[in-house]
């Protein structure tokens, strides 16, 4: 009996292979976009974990000398004997005839596993590494550069950062002239609780807390949440297709269900067979989706890696490694998606009365009553979105608000379209036009899922497009303000910085020191920059709000400027008191600081002396832009500076903009994919509706409309609905942009951006959505135009 029942159910798909393909493709697309994004996120997070373990990254706590000088090697020995688990590191630059490298001297015996980058971690460091002349491990590119120099034998290892070398600590001490001295000690995990305090063993040393990578996951969370939200949106759009296909298949099989029940198949058995059928589809489509997701992730990962590197300094390998858990999650999401999409259809089957009408009915003819329920749900979600925006805080609340807003808009769409079509019908003159509007209204339930998907895709496009373009416009203007100096030069040490300054002062209009220190505000790390009192800052710095005479106050040490992120984080306004690393002062003003995830404070040059470990090695140089090339050459010739130490304004702007473009390349790609999925949803809906259209079109044809005209009207219908959906997507998209700019950005990055409108983009998007609708309607229209009269006549046949 079960076999016969299954055969009867499956026979539907043999007769409607296109419907089966639609279902599988919809599910596969939904799974692909979701699992692709998840693969990227997983890979990135795995990379952070590796980075956090790596030496040189400032993730671990360090022990440094209080005066910033080198540590005596005896202190290391004393600490180890006292139970402190620390490993020594010397860190310095080695000058060769072919340029310099940063050399890290490490102790392989105390270094924890996995602390070295790339393949170096897997390379057995043997006696030749430890004993003179030793080895210097560098990347292949750096090895080529260093060929022929008098360094110890060079070992090439993939994964080592450019211009960086690793050697045994003893070898490195010799090379750097630091015999008996150490740069810092790394504090390892799992320290014994009974160890004595640092002060009792080495009072001249202090622990500097790890930073950077420890915060990396937190900093990049917003980026990953962004990607996840996109993945979820694409998944939802894909589910609209699946819901449409499953709903149609169940409606068309109602007579079969009734017959099977009448012939003795229990409801439980029928449901079991249907669920088994859906499970098989979910697994097949899931496997296909995972393969597609892998492809998407492979294509997008290089951009994501570049973005994370550029925006957060996070290193992510450009290659994807696949974990079994990823496969299983992909299949799980496919099964879950199928369950969500088929839930209501299965529920209906469970409640189907044995003597229910055998004619398929409701799928394309949903009653206005269900629309009213939809309106109530939409209203409730809109209220929820407003409440979340008003009362909620944090990134998750921001995204919850976005989600509620989008779903509310999608649910309200059929109702609004229904009203618009009714209005259109009232204004129409002539029987064909009146029929056109009324018939379009009747088609609405069958098309509403696809139109909802289109609305989501269009609104997201408008929202994200407006955000990115607003960001771009603001960012470009901000770069012009912020990067006012023509050249930025970094000295290797303070001694060189003094010579450099004297050299530059003779050859420029002004040399602006950019000295900095690390500090804390409210226990969180803060960048502190000292600024010279100079018109360059007074004229250009992107101040958002400030007290009068802000620059005078900063120069005199009566106040500080803080970045926007810090003002949001600690709810600070001009005039508020602030404590910067123990210094009590006042907020004199707030400036925009896009792209920086950390809190930042600008103080006067004199005030900077209050802080420890001030780096006095960087300068901004004001010169005629045409002279930057010559000055750069002179700096390299005179001081042997590496090209990396000299950055001209144009290059920096170009670099910043390229980071910006890459940041949004991923979002752009996902945008296009989502729109393509929505286009596919319209196509599949129109094609499935086309098979049900004949009984509705045949009477009109019989009354005197040609098939060609009916086909043209079919295309106009698709265009009208897509156009109306686009018009509704516009306010939703702009609201979305506002939430992204004013809520999500502030929560995620700590800055708020002004919103700009770009009507050109809307016109383009309208053109694209009309084109998508036109293309989607071509095949169904052609099918109507070419329907043989004999098929039309079957509608009227008594034997039908």
């Amino acid at each position, binding site marked *: 009996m079960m076999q016969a029942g299954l055969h009867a159910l499956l026979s539907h798909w043999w007769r409607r292979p296109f419907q089966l393909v639609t279902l599988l493709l919809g599910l596969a697309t939904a799974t692909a976009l979701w699992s692709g994004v998840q693969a990227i996120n997983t890979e990135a997070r795995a990379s952070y974990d590796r980075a956090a373990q790596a030496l040189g990254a400032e993730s671990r706590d360090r022990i440094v000398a209080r005066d910033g000088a080198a540590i005596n090697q005896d202190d290391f020995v004393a600490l180890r004997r006292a139970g402190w688990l620390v490993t020594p590191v010397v860190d310095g630059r080695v000058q060769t005839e072919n340029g310099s490298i940063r050399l890290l001297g490490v102790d392989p015996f105390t270094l924890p596993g996995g602390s070295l980058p790339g393949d170096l971690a897997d390379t057995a460091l043997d006696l030749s590494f430890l004993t003179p002349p030793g080895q210097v491990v560098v990347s292949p590119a750096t090895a080529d550069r260093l060929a022929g120099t008098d360094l110890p034998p060079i070992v090439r290892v993939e994964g080592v950062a450019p211009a960086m070398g690793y050697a045994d600590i003893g070898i490195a001490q010799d090379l750097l002239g630091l015999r008996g001295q150490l740069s810092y000690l790394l504090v390892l995990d799992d320290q014994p609780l009974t160890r004595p305090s640092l002060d009792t063993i080495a009072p001249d040393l202090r622990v500097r807390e790890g930073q950077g990578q420890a915060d990396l996951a937190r900093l990049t969370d917003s980026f990953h949440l962004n990607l996840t939200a996109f993945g979820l949106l694409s998944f939802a759009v894909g589910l609209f297709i699946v819901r449409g296909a499953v709903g149609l298949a169940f409606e068309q099989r109602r007579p079969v269900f009734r017959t099977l029940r009448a012939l003795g198949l229990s409801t439980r058995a029928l449901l079991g067979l249907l669920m088994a059928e859906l499970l098989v589809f979910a697994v097949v489509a899931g496997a296909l989706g995972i393969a597609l997701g892998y492809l998407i992730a492979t294509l997008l990962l290089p951009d994501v890696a570049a973005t994370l590197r550029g925006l957060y300094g996070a290193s992510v390998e450009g290659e994807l490694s696949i974990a079994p858990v990823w496969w299983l999650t992909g299949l799980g999401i496919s099964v879950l998606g199928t369950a969500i999409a088929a839930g209501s259809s299965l529920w209906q089957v469970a409640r189907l009365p044995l003597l229910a009408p055998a004619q398929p009915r409701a799928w394309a*003819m949903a009653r206005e009553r269900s629309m009213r329920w939809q309106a109530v749900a939409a209203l409730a979600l809109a209220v929820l979105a407003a409440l979340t925006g008003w009362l909620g805080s944090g990134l998750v609340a921001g995204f919850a608000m976005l989600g509620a807003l989008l779903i509310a808009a999608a649910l309200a769409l059929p109702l609004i379209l229904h009203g618009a079509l009714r209005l259109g019908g009232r204004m129409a003159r*002539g*029987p*064909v036009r*009146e*029929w056109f509007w*009324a*018939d379009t*209204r*009747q088609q609405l339930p069958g098309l509403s899922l696809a139109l909802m998907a289109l609305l989501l895709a269009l609104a997201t496009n408008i929202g994200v497009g407006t955000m990115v373009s607003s960001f771009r416009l603001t960012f470009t203007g901000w770069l012009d303000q912020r990067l006012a100096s023509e050249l930025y030069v970094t000295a290797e040490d303070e001694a060189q910085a003094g010579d450099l300054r004297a050299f530059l002062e003779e050859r420029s209009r002004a040399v602006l020191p950019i000295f900095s220190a690390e500090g804390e505000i409210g226990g969180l790390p803060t960048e502190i920059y000292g600024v010279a009192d100079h018109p360059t800052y007074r004229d250009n710095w992107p101040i958002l709000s400030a007290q009068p005479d802000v620059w005078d106050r900063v120069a005199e040490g009566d106040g500080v400027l803080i970045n926007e992120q810090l003002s949001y984080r600690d709810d600070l306004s001009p005039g508020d008191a602030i404590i910067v690393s123990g210094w009590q002062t006042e907020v004199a003003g707030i400036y925009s600081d896009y792209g920086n995830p950390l809190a930042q404070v600008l103080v006067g040059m004199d005030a900077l002396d209050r802080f420890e470990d001030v780096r006095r090695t960087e300068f901004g140089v004001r010169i005629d832009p045409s002279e930057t090339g010559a000055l750069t050459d002179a700096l390299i010739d005179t001081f042997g500076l590496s090209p990396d130490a000299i950055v001209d304004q144009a290059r920096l702007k170009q670099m910043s903009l390229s980071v910006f473009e890459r940041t949004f390349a991923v979002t752009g790609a996902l945008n296009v994919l989502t729109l393509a999925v929505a286009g596919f949803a319209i196509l599949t809906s129109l094609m499935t509706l086309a098979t049900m259209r004949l*009984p*509705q079109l*045949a*009477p*009109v*044809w*019989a*009354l*005197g*409309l*040609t*098939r*060609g005209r009916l086909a043209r009207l079919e295309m106009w219908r698709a265009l009208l609905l897509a156009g109306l959906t686009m018009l509704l997507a516009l306010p939703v998209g702009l609201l979305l942009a506002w939430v992204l700019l004013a809520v999500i950005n502030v929560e995620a990055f700590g800055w708020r951006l002004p919103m700009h409108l770009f009507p050109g983009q809307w016109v383009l998007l309208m053109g694209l959505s009309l084109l998508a609708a036109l293309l989607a309607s071509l095949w169904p229209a052609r099918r109507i135009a070419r329907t043989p*009269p*004999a098929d*039309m*006549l079957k*509608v*009227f*046949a*008594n*034997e*039908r």
Partner: protein
Amino acid sequence: MLSVDTLSKTYPGEAGPTAVLKGVSFGLDDGDTMALQGESGSGKSTLLHLIGGLDRADSGRIVIGEDEVTALDDRGRARLRRDSVGIVFQQFNLIPSLTVADNLAFQARLAGRRDTDWDARLTERLGLADHGKKYPEQLSGGQQQRVAIGRALAAKPRLVLADEPTGNLDEDTGERVLDLMLDLVRETGATLLMVTHSAQLAARMNRRLYLERGALSG
């Protein structure tokens, strides 16, 4: 008014082509009413469809008034259906998205011959005055068929083709619907060709034709 001359039609089938009509010829004058009878599959509906320009004959000639239907292209046949013929189907085939009033006036408006006085009288005569704003699905079968008859007659066509118009109705309702249709056909002076299985209904027509395996008999 209607002339059908040696009309033939063959449909392709899995077991080879099937000749549905084999050289059928007959004529009808203005105001004539004719019943077309025959077994299932004898070709009655096909003949009606060919006359109404819903399908094309393989050979033979159909003339309605001045129009040679068999010589018309797709567009010409659409115009013929709009302007000259009113068709009543067994399944009613109303337009579900339009109200009863809109359905009733639809063909007359398509033909550009709407007569609101006639519409009002027709609605009254058909007993649909209280149902104008309803949708077809809200009506009973008999009411729906009355709308279909009204739609066919609203444009006052020269020829009314009815394919088992009472086949979906019970006997009493069928009788009343037929009475109404005959009255209205007489009132407009139209010619009526009606397919029916019922000898009782056929007896109420001026003339009767019997089709057997695609050819006229008796």
